[in-house]
């Protein structure tokens, strides 16, 4: 600093020009906000001074004077906080306070007043927490309104309005969060580890969480808005159609099912009731079937000692059994007739074999004997049954009939 030459031309010129800025500040700020610089009113001398100082310039012959780039940029920086406050008061205020605190902290550390610096850092940390909780509260309030579907207002129209309001709130927060420039904060923190932790690591994490919650809120608001609009349309439709039907009680729409293209809404296939039974032949289902069987409720066993009357025995002969029996009877009659025809005795089994009948020999013999027993006594006299029998064993005297011979008694039936 001491090496700076206060009397050098450059320093003198700088001071001159800064004074110029101060002297015509009002004029310049008006120009900054788009007002034309009235050269006649300002006077040629002033205009020349400003042009010379490179504070204003003339883009082309016809146009008026404009602030030069560097001056415009400087003003932008000087009034940045106000701009931020316009976008989002909470974030704008926060950034302003942070800058002031960082300045004070650096100052205190520069003076070696570490106690004060620690105190200020705690204050800064408090600021960060404050901002966080304000954003979080804002988001919470938005969620609350979302969760209750804006129940605090009654009509859909009002809900749509509230939704729009909430939506602009979200946008305001999103714009606010975008104001937080982490490059700037990194620069603020400089080499101070504590500041870096609070301003960069902690805040960055929180801001990114807020960003994603706000995006989610925004998405949900849009969905809800779509639903509100849909509900509004539905209400209108139901009300309007009922009014219409009331005015035109005999209204009949056209038959949409007979059109070349039938919309799905009127194309509803007839109902079909599928039924299924267990496939007993599917081996792989055996286990499942067993399980089903096990699960069947046990059948109630009638108690054996309960007095019960026997049902009258109803003997229902199966048609096929009856037919078989008749055939057997007829075959046996044929055997008797054959003996009569041939006028000589014959073995029942031999006849069975000769006639190629398929009866079981035992049944056959039984029927031949039964037929003989069943003959009228006059007819019985014409025949004689000769049993061909053997003892069952050496020690068993039971006689087993091996065959029967049907013999003709000539004196019985006169030829």
């Amino acid at each position, binding site marked *: 600093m001491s090496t700076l030459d206060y009397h050098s031309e450059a320093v003198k010129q700088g001071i001159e020009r800064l004074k110029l800025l101060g002297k015509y500040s009002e004029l310049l700020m008006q120009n900054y906000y788009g007002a034309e610089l009235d050269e006649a009113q300002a006077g040629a001398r002033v205009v020349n001074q400003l042009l010379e100082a490179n504070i204003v310039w003339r883009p082309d012959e016809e146009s008026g004077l404009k602030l030069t780039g560097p001056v415009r940029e400087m003003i932008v920086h000087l009034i940045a906080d106000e701009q931020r406050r316009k976008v989002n008061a909470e974030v704008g205020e926060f950034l302003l306070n942070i800058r002031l605190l960082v300045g004070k902290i650096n100052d205190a550390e520069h003076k070696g007043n570490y106690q004060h610096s620690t105190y200020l850092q705690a204050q800064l940390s408090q600021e960060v927490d404050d901002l966080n909780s304000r954003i979080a509260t804002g988001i919470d309030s938005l969620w609350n309104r979302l969760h209750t579907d804006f129940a605090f207002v*009654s*009509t859909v129209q009002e809900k749509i309005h509230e939704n729009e309001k909430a939506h602009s709130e979200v946008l305001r927060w999103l714009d606010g969060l975008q104001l937080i420039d982490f490059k700037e904060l990194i620069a603020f923190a400089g080499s101070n580890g504590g500041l870096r932790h609070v301003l960069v690591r902690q805040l960055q994490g929180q801001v990114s969480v807020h960003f994603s919650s706000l995006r989610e809120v925004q998405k949900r608001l849009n969905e809800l808005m779509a639903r509100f609009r849909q*509900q509004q349309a539905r209400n209108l*439709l139901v*009300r309007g159609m009922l*009014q219409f039907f009331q005015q035109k009680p005999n209204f009949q729409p056209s038959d949409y099912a*007979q059109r070349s293209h039938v919309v799905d809404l009127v*194309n509803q296939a007839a109902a079909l009731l*599928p039924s299924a039974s267990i496939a007993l032949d599917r081996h792989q289902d055996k286990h499942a079937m067993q399980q089903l069987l096990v699960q069947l409720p046990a059948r109630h066993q009638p108690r054996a000692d309960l007095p019960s009357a026997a049902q009258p025995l109803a003997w229902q002969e199966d048609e096929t059994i009856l037919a078989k029996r008749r055939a057997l009877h007829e075959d046996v009659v044929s055997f008797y007739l054959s003996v009569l025809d041939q006028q000589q005795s014959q073995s029942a089994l031999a006849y069975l074999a000769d006639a190629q009948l398929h009866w079981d020999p035992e049944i056959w013999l039984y029927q031949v004997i039964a037929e003989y027993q069943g003959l009228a006594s006059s007819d019985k006299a014409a025949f004689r049954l000769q049993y061909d029998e053997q003892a069952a064993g050496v020690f068993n005297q039971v006689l087993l009939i091996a065959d029967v011979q049907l013999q003709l008694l000539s004196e019985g039936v006169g030829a």
Partner: protein
Amino acid sequence: MMMQYSHLLEQLLAGGFICEVTDSQGFRHLQDEEQRAALDQYLRPLNRRLASNPEGTVWFLAWRELTADLREQLSQQFKETLDSLIPMLKLLQLTQETLGHENVLTANDIINRHDLAARIENNPSLREQLQALVQTRFFQSQSEDVAGQLKQVFDRLRSHGYLHQPHKDRHHYVVTGKIDYLIDLTRFIREEENIYIDEDVPPSQEDLLA
């Protein structure tokens, strides 16, 4: 996979409407395009295919190829639906008014039958509206009292698939996605027949009472 969704298929084949309320699992299954293609493949020999309302909130089966006979059946069915349309719209208005809802009933809304009955009971105008409603062919009830009439109305709504009763012994009913289908059909008729509805006038109390 088919095994797992045989219930869904049966429901669809039986003429059921599948929405998130009636069968959330089945409905989720139907959100998958591949699974829908598989079901359609299966339904092909039955001359049926999956269909939904425009928003896809409710699914049902439609004929794949239409013959004269099937068109006749559809005409008949449409006529029946039309017969139920006005009573259904009136019912929607009645419940909306009774419950003091801002909106007409939509899928997922829960209605307590007892609560509804009590509110109608206490209001002569609502009682009259219900009385008129149960005299329509769609709802017809012989009952003299509000509770009995409402029970008949709810039974009809349930059997037509507009309401789902999660617990047989409780009086809570959930509105199903089939109501979306009915609304969409109403909207379709309105558009097809160029029916004019004055959209600028917000629904007022007088209109609701008209």
